[in-house]
């Protein structure tokens, strides 16, 4: 069975490319444009990985990660964010995030890290 990945990101171009690339890599991809929708999807569906932005409409990434780590602790999370502030990156890792990728990013590298994260779990 294909591994399922949830992408939470509000930039449609990034979403399109990630979807394209990860589908090519053989994953099944589900997209949520904002934190609120993501929570709803997570309630009904099971995933092997979540890739999320931090700046999101309605419910921001940090809140979302907190929710995931409290309720589905085994689900790995990769953050994809423009933030270069060390404080924020440190906070994210403290919350149990598995990987942190800053934008602009290399899709090939992201694909490798996705593979590694899923395999390690």
């Amino acid at each position: 069975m294909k591994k399922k990945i949830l992408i939470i990101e509000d930039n449609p171009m990034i979403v399109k490319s990630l979807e394209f690339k990860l589908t090519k890599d053989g994953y099944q991809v589900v997209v949520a444009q904002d934190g609120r929708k993501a929570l709803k999807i997570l309630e009904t569906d099971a995933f092997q990985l979540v890739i999320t932005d931090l700046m999101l409409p309605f419910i921001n990434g940090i809140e979302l990660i907190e929710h995931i780590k409290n309720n589905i602790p085994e689900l790995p999370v990769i953050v994809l964010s423009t933030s270069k502030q060390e404080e924020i990156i440190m906070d994210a890792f403290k919350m149990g995030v598995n990987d942190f990728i800053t934008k602009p990013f290399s899709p090939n590298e992201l694909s490798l890290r996705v593979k590694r994260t899923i395999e390690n779990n």
Partner: protein
Amino acid sequence: MNSLEHIVNDWPWILKLNALFIVLFLVFIIMVICSLVYLRIYKNQRERHKISYQENADEFLNNYMFNDDFDIKNEIETFKSKHLNTPLKKKITLRQILIYNENFKGESSVLIKKVFQELELDQFVFNILKKGSWYAKARAIYVLSELLVKEPRLVSPYLNAKHEEVREQAIYYFLKTATNNPLSFFKNLKTELTLWELVYIEDSIKYAYTGETPDFSIWLDHHLITIRIFSIKMIQQFNQFENIPKIIPFLYHENPHVRKETIRALYKLHYEALLEKVIPSFKDEEEVVKSEIIKAIQALGRIDQLKELKSLISNQDKRTELTYLQVEKNFMIN
């Protein structure tokens, strides 16, 4: 019909005039309403087209970047003939290329710059730069900057363009594409820069320019005063301690804003001998400089040095007094 003409002919002039105006206004109203409706339909249609063009462009670009089985050579030819045959299609594809370029780095970012040239969109941009309106030109220069297209001779005339938006983009272009000496375009400038442009340059050096940090002291004797102030500020922001001796003479410059910026730069660079140079002239200084001297004492001095100044602040000068009191309070707390 005849009888109507008869009636109108019998009207006094004022009625005729009014009738003329009513007809005139009505015609205009109908014309305006027609253009309103036409514009709306045109814009709606354009929006719909834009969406489909965008989908085509995305499909092509994603395949180009991520699909190893993509027959690049043939696909480029097909895309060019089918999906790049109108200016709007080119513009939309260009916009998508810029978005991908902005978000990706590594291999994909190299590919996106390559596809820009393979699709011959660079020629399209050069044409806009030659013939377009000023806002299209500004946009074109922006595209060249983002995609790092090296055509400095094409862009350089726009450094002194009439429209500030074009000038801004030209400045940005030189900073973004420079690999060393990013401020060399300063020598081509003829008029004082506005604050906005200076902010723009500063930001571009910090965030867009990727080469080695330039030595700002070479611009300290530039004929434009704004560039001198800018250089002093940059020497401080980039901690160029080696340039401290070169900016000290500006403590005695005739322009108070130059003096103020110099004092600020020197105390931020922890230049210990600053206070003995500026405190003696405090009494006769301008208001803006006075406050800066007080702040310098906060950074480098002692409370007794501050208190010596108290009697020198005039009762009228409330702002300096307030700065004084604030700094005094900070001394007490620490």
